[in-house]
């Protein structure tokens, strides 16, 4: 095993691959994505285990908890805030202030309805205001309310100003207002503060959820779909193609008929129909979020095996005429054994390349299907993010679509570079 690994590392293909800087960088990027995906997956697992057994509470370790399904759905700030702390136009800065003041106002208005424990109710409502780690300052309600009213008056005067852009006095006033608003809250420090900055770094969506957390969390979804679909579809295609080529006769007729028929339908239509078949079944149940990806897996696996099947069938047709296959038969092995143990391993390089192509295809198709409302149903994904951002784009808010696209672009690009490099490295016709 170890000598095998050493041999692989020293092989011509591996040396050629390592000399390709882009390919190594792409591999590093993919490794990073994989690590993040694995991280999210294990945090979710730990959390579920902790919740059911009571052995630990992941939520008390903010760094560990930063990326999880729960966090991807958590409200961390006002709605549709831009990222990088940029508030380019004064109007938008004013809107952000107003959003925070309104949230407080809703809580204070509870008082108007009167009743015994109104103080307590207001307290509870204030405590619920939660922008990630930012909480309402811990002060007596009355004091806070007075302060709030002062800030609100300050806001009103600025809001009345007809043109914020041109008034030279407006900008300092706006800065004062922002400082005064911030004083109503306690900014977290240390790890929590850092996490809050991280969450707001790419802004928030229409429900005030962190775009950054959503985009990073979606890595897990993408890799899950990519891996499952690429592995299953490649193996399925390889087995069918190899069996058809090796056994010939009606097996081959059937395989060729099956993939010709399926490939005469446009991929997307086929995918849509297959996914649609699952609507209303157990896999469509909000109470079983862990099953929600199964329709996607099934549809893509049933669609994507065609590519590898074609290629591997062609290769096995060639290999089975080679003498080592005959020689293996002459040793006495059965045909099935010769196929699996001698012919298939010689198509491994093709399987690798097909795997990486399908991985990308699966991720891209997840986005398309989610955009059409047929894809990911629970949690989030790049496709869902892009779908959500359609209305935002009309309003000129590009953070969500930008983040989802950029994260996906990097992964797809890295995989393209990698599969190119793999093809080069394994192709015996390329010398060097």
């Amino acid at each position: 095993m170890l000598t095998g690994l050493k041999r692989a590392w020293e092989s011509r293909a591996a040396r050629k691959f390592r000399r390709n800087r882009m390919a190594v960088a792409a591999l590093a990027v993919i490794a990073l994505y994989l690590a993040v995906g694995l991280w999210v997956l294990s945090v979710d697992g730990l959390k579920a285990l902790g919740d059911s057994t009571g052995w630990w509470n992941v939520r008390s370790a903010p760094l560990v908890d930063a990326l999880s399904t729960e966090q991807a759905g958590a409200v961390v700030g006002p709605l549709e805030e831009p990222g990088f702390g940029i508030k380019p136009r004064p109007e938008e800065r004013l809107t952000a202030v107003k959003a925070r003041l309104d949230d407080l106002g809703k809580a204070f208005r509870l008082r108007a309805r009167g009743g015994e424990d109104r103080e307590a109710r207001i307290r509870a409502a204030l405590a619920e205001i939660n922008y990630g780690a930012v909480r309402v300052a811990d002060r007596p309600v009355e004091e806070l309310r007075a302060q709030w009213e002062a800030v609100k008056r300050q806001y009103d005067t600025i809001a009345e100003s007809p043109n914020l852009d041109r008034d030279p006095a407006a900008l300092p006033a706006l800065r004062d207002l922002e400082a005064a608003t911030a004083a109503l809250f306690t900014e977290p420090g240390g790890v929590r503060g850092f996490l809050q900055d991280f969450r707001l770094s790419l802004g928030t969506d229409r429900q005030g959820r962190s775009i950054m957390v959503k985009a990073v969390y979606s890595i897990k979804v993408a890799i899950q779909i990519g891996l499952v679909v690429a592995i299953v579809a490649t193996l399925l295609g390889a087995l069918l193609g190899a069996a058809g080529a090796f056994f010939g006769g009606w097996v081959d007729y059937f395989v060729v008929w099956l993939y010709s028929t399926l490939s005469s339908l446009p991929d997307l239509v086929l995918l849509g129909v297959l996914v649609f078949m699952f609507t209303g079944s157990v896999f469509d149940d909000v109470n079983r979020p862990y099953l929600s990806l199964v329709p996607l897996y099934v549809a893509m696996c049933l669609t994507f095996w065609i590519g590898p099947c074609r290629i591997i069938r062609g290769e096995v047709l060639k290999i089975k005429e080679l003498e080592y296959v005959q020689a293996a038969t002459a040793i006495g092995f059965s045909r099935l054994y010769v196929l699996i143990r001698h012919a298939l391993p010689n198509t491994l390089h093709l399987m690798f390349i097909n795997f990486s192509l399908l991985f990308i295809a699966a991720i891209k198709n997840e986005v398309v299907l989610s955009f059409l409302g047929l894809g990911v149903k629970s949690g989030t994904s790049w496709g869902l993010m892009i779908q959500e951002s359609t209305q935002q784009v009309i309003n000129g808010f590009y953070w969500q679509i930008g983040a989802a696209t950029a994260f996906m672009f990097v992964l797809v690009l890295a995989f393209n570079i990698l599969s190119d490099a793999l093809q080069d490295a394994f192709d015996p016709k390329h010398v060097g």
Partner: protein
Amino acid sequence: MPAGEPVLSVRGLSACFRTDLGVVTAVDDVSFDLSAGETLAIVGESGCGKTVTSKSIMRLLPERNSFLSDQSRIIYHNRPRRRAAAKDRLPPGEIELAHADAPTMHHVRGARIAMIFQEPMTSLNPVFTIGWQLDEALKYHTDLSRRGRRRRAVEMLRLVEIANPEQRIHEYPHQLSGGMRQRVMIALALCCEPDVLIADEPTTALDVTIQAQILDLMAGLKARLGTAIMFITHNLGVVAQFADRVLVMYAGRVIESGPVRDIFHRPQHPYTRALLDSIPRAGNRHRGRPLATIEGIVPSLLNLPGGCKFADRCPRRRENCVEREPALEPGPDGRPVRCYYPHHEPRVAEPGGRT
């Protein structure tokens, strides 16, 4: 096993292919015996059915478009014999292979009748080490332990004269030269101690010096292991030096057979004689004269002539030759020959060879 007793008896073997132009009979009514420890050479022009004969015995012809006639009998004589931990799953006695079922063939192939191919470059699987490939065959046919199999693999490589077998065992086929790969193929074929080794032009793809080494190796192994060898070749020089008996084939038929000395000294069939005359030789007999060749080409299997298949090219042809095909009958010196007018006189020349 005592020498002289047959290990393999082929009777009336006919192999047919279904082609788009109809059924062709590539091998027609071939019969011969192969005795323990004997080397039988099969010679003949390209396309005369040598490979089809050997593949029929191994039952390696494509099942889809080929079949053996119902009269065909390929009898393997399974005699009790001490083997190194072989899984003996075949009943003793005569085993008919021409129509045997798949499990029987799995036990016969490799373990009792082994085969090496012409092209050493592609006869080994490129993705596995040679040790792995030897081990795989031993695992399938013997009860040896892991360690025992390894010892045997090393021993086999040493037997075929590969230097440093302990290291070579970890190497991949592409790290070996053509000659070494053919040695490994021989080791692979012999590792389960088969009774019969079929070698289909095992040296044709190698250069001349390596050819000689491989042939010497096979001759040595034959003497040591007592394996019967069925040797297919174009090279009559090799036949003279290496074979005990010769089977001459033409257009899918046996036309003459006999001990190697008789074939070379007193060939009876005009084709055999023409074949021997076309061997280039050292010495001055041919200086200044063109090498003798056989005029014409082998008839197509799709429309074979009715009478003697060699009639078109035969210098001794007479009227009746084309009417009915001659049978394989004892000729002037008692050996079977398929000709109405066989040669009686011995051939003047010395047997050809690598001189």
